[in-house]
């Protein structure tokens, strides 16, 4: 029994958990959300640009997108975060007069997310039938307007599940910015749990941090399944047989 008690105390020491929960919720949660949501939005914008470049008729643009994607998808996130966070900090300090690595963490997460999101968008846009672009252009829309109004919205809709998955992954990867040594008020969920663990020698604060991650990610996972089903089956609506006779001839008398 001693061993079980010891395990319980290591992972589920309620007292240690209770102590860290206020900081997790008041500091860690907002910071994790800011990191993930900001880099998610910026990464989507950059990703959309990369996708448009990847399908562009301009070979230079295609190559640039290809190289970018290969690099940022091929490197471990933690390496990118460290290289950007430390490597760019003198420049960032020069420009902003601020030594805070937090914005650089967002930048690194954005650059990584953009590579993945760009590929997601590209596959979605390319899955839209050629006839859609053709029909739009036949109406008189330019290539740009056709993409903006007809092709891209359909492509994005198709990859919404993959996009939410990417956001879940971003939510978790945002923990890696702890490597940059953030100020106490800038620390995210993992770092706060980790600090408390280091201070107390007890794992329970990390378990609490883990639970908080799950509270964020599990509903999102199920949200993915929901939109996935919805996109495949659509809203239930009834089909009616074609009413042939009624309309015809109505327009004949010019």
């Amino acid at each position, binding site marked *: 029994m001693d061993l079980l008690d010891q395990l319980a105390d290591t992972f589920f020491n309620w007292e240690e958990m209770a102590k860290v929960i206020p900081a997790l919720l008041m500091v860690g949660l907002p910071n994790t959300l800011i990191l993930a949501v900001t880099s998610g939005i910026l990464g989507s914008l950059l990703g959309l640009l990369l996708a448009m470049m990847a399908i562009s008729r301009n070979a230079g643009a295609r190559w640039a997108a290809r190289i970018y994607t290969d690099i940022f998808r091929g490197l471990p996130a933690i390496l990118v975060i460290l290289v950007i966070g430390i490597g760019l900090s003198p420049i960032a300090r020069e420009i902003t007069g601020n030594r805070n690595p937090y914005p650089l963490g967002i930048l690194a997460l954005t650059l990584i997310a953009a590579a993945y999101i760009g590929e997601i968008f590209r596959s979605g846009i390319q899955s839209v*039938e050629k*006839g*859609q672009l*053709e*029909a*739009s*252009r*036949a*109406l*008189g*829309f*330019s290539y740009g*307007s056709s993409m903006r*109004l*007809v092709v891209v*919205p*359909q492509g994005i*809709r198709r990859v919404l599940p993959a996009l939410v998955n990417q956001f879940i992954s971003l939510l978790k990867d945002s923990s890696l910015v702890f490597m940059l040594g953030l100020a106490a008020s800038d620390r995210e969920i993992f770092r706060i749990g980790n600090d408390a663990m280091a201070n107390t020698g007890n794992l329970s604060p990390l378990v609490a941090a883990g639970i908080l991650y799950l509270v964020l990610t599990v509903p999102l996972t199920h949200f993915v399944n929901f939109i996935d089903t919805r996109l495949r089956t*659509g809203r239930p*609506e*009834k*089909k*009616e*047989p*074609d*009413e*042939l006779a*009624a*309309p*015809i*001839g*109505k*327009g*004949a*008398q*010019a």
Partner: protein
Amino acid sequence: MTEFTSGTLTGKNLHLSFGHNHVLRGIDLHVEKGTTASVIGPSGSGKSTLLRVMNRLIEPDQGDILLDGRSVLKDNPDELRQRIGMVFQQFNLFPHKTVVENVSLAVRKLRKLPKDQAHAEALEQLDLVGLKHKADARPANLSGGQQQRVAIARALAMKPEVMFFDEATSALDPELVKGVLALMADLAKGGMTMVVVTHEMGFSRNVSDTVTFMDGGVVVETGPPEQLFTAPETDRLKGFLSDVL
């Protein structure tokens, strides 16, 4: 129904190659204002490509396209396509938009009508094809025949001078073909200039003013329907007609 401001459309010596594949080998096609020209021929003869070249969805390698006697090759191709409506075999409605939005989108963005006016015009067009009651449905919830009639309304809403039909009934269930053909016949009677690529020999014979038979990227025979259907001159057209009739 609206009076069409139809135009005379002429393709002269049109050539197009995809790599080594010489798809169009000097096509001439003349469609007098207010008339319907049907283009028939075996698959792969270049009929659909010809339509796409004549509205410059694909730029010809050689030749000229005239609308009302004026070459349009130097014009902005987007503006040319606003003057030529096109209906496709696969309908190609925009699935992420409602039926009425499908029709009003280009009216709003290209003819620059205010939103409510574009909506009203779109409803009017839908009424003409008998689908006003489906305005708020999604295309996916319509039958093929209904979708194609919406596609026709969408093209007509731009008030085009010429209409292209690219095998508009080929993807439809047999019982839905009649409705779409009747609508096309109405348009023809109403004075719209039309180029109709079709496998419907009945339509070609009874509705069109001229018939053009294409094979292997060239025009083999062209003339009034009675002539081509009752007295074909070439063996190729005779063979084709005996295959399809």
